[in-house]
């Protein structure tokens, strides 16, 4: 018996970069997180050729889910063309042979940092959100083992107190990105630093959302058709950013989440944050045949 007969044939790299056991770990933890919506599952986060804190959690989930047929879209704060989004997209394509796209409608898998696209996602699509800080209780309970006990007991009094304090001090809830939300009536999660504008999109969404923090080694999920309710007092309504009335200065798209571009004279112009949606609007204006999906917001109002 030779040593060679006992070893597997040499391969330059595993398919999709991660080795089989790393993927198995991720698949198991994804299944667990789908089984208990909003509950953070610890996982063995691997090294990937990118610094922790730059989307390594999302990247590992995407690498595990990929196959040569799955069409991938990567966005960073709404934009497909930021350096980070472009590098991740190229890397995913390189190690899996998966086709890529910029169009939300054409994507099977969307990895995103800090935004959910404006076009409504379908049942056959998966959204992977990169998460910097998965623990919503961190600001009220720095001791993580106590925080975990609080999740187990659904002990969210301190979280509510934080909102109370904000209203007392500032007259309104100051929490912007990552608004704490109750998933399926049980676990409070941070929906990653998406703006308040995007949180209602998760409620009873048709698509699966997987949230993954590579540095913090936590995965959690919002399965399709799951209740996601931002924590709000009965008599202080949830408010999204005041972007409904704004118009994109480049594409003239109106009623979506905008990026503010400060001008030299002190004023601001706005550009639609979902860059692919903006590009499609411009293409349509130029007479190209483009397809638009239904959007979550119409004229700045949530449709459902």
């Amino acid at each position, binding site marked *: 018996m030779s040593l060679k007969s006992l070893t597997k044939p040499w391969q330059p790299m595993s398919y999709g970069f991660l080795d089989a056991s790393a993927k198995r770990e991720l698949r198991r933890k994804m299944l667990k997180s789908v089984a208990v919506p909003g509950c953070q599952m610890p996982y063995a986060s691997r090294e990937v050729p990118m610094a922790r804190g730059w989307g390594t959690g999302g990247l590992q989930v995407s690498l595990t889910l990929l196959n040569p047929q799955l069409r991938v879209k990567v966005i960073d704060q709404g934009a497909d063309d930021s350096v980070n989004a472009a590098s991740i997209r190229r890397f995913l394509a390189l190690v899996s042979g998966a086709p890529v796209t910029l169009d939300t409608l054409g994507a099977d898998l969307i990895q995103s940092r800090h935004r959910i696209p404006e076009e409504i996602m379908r049942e056959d699509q998966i959204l992977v959100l990169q998460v910097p800080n998965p623990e919503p209780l961190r600001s009220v309970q720095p001791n993580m083992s106590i925080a975990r006990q609080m999740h187990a007991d659904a002990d969210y009094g301190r979280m509510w*107190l934080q909102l109370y304090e904000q*209203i007392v*001090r500032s007259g309104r809830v100051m929490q912007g990105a990552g608004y704490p939300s109750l998933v399926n009536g049980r676990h409070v999660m941070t929906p990653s630093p998406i703006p308040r504008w995007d949180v209602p999109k998760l409620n009873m969404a048709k698509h699966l959302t997987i949230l993954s923090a590579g540095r913090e080694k936590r995965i959690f999920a919002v399965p399709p058709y799951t209740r996601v309710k931002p924590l709000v007092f009965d*008599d202080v309504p949830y408010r999204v950013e005041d972007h409904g009335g704004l118009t994109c200065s480049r594409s003239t798209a109106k009623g979506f989440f905008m990026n503010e571009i400060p001008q030299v004279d002190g004023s601001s112009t706005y550009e639609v944050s979902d860059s692919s949606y903006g590009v499609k609007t411009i293409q349509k204006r130029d007479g190209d045949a483009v397809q638009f999906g239904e959007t979550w917001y119409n004229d700045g109002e949530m449709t459902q």
Partner: protein
Amino acid sequence: MTRVMDAPRIVTTKPLVVVRNVDKNYGSVQALRQVSALVYPGEVLGIVGESGSGKSTLLRMMNLEETPDSGSYTLDLSDVSGNLFELDRFARRMLCATRIGIVYQNPHHGLLMRHSSSGNVAERLLVAGERSFATLRAKAKSALAASEFPLERLDAPPIELSGGMQQRVQLAKAIALEPALLLLDEPTTGLDVSVQALVLDTLKRLQQERQITMVIVSHDLGVIRTVADRVMVMRRGEVVEAGLVDQIFQDPQHAYTQQLVHAKL
């Protein structure tokens, strides 16, 4: 029911609190030895004793913050039964959060010093499930008013308040949910004598208006004499004597109690 202490037979009401044969050791320190206590609905039980006699330990047991080595604890309430020391963590937390109020000697234990005072009170209500901001504020305000806290400082953080005001915030927090049992661990120790008198007045008034059952710990006999109906004297983890306040103060039986009372007079 088995008899716990030689409770006077004339008392016909059932005790609200029954603590029986509690033992607690911290390593080689015997903090509590076979301690039993009864508290009747609406009465104020005072606990006196020298430093280290186990008063705070007993109160922490009653607040279910700690489990004794042996012994039992029951509360005569419609929604709780059995030995409370055997409840799991979650059930304990819910019971303490809704039915038992506590005021600690050190406000740092009982309060979030950098949150607003009203928020400290509101937290109790939030834990109990109140989700209307207007109701939270109204209830926090009325609890603070009942403990005679100056309402213009409603949203000031305790760290900016005087010791007496901090104790009033703790008291408001403790009574916000109309607790079945109010525990007070040296609520006036460390306060200026005149402030101490004012806080005691508030306690007495609350007791008269709401008939809250209270257990108050103090090493100050004067405090106990002012507010308590019955008193329990502790020494080195043991109850040496218990009885009506007047009885104990006028005719102490145990040598240690005699010493205490005479030193005071």
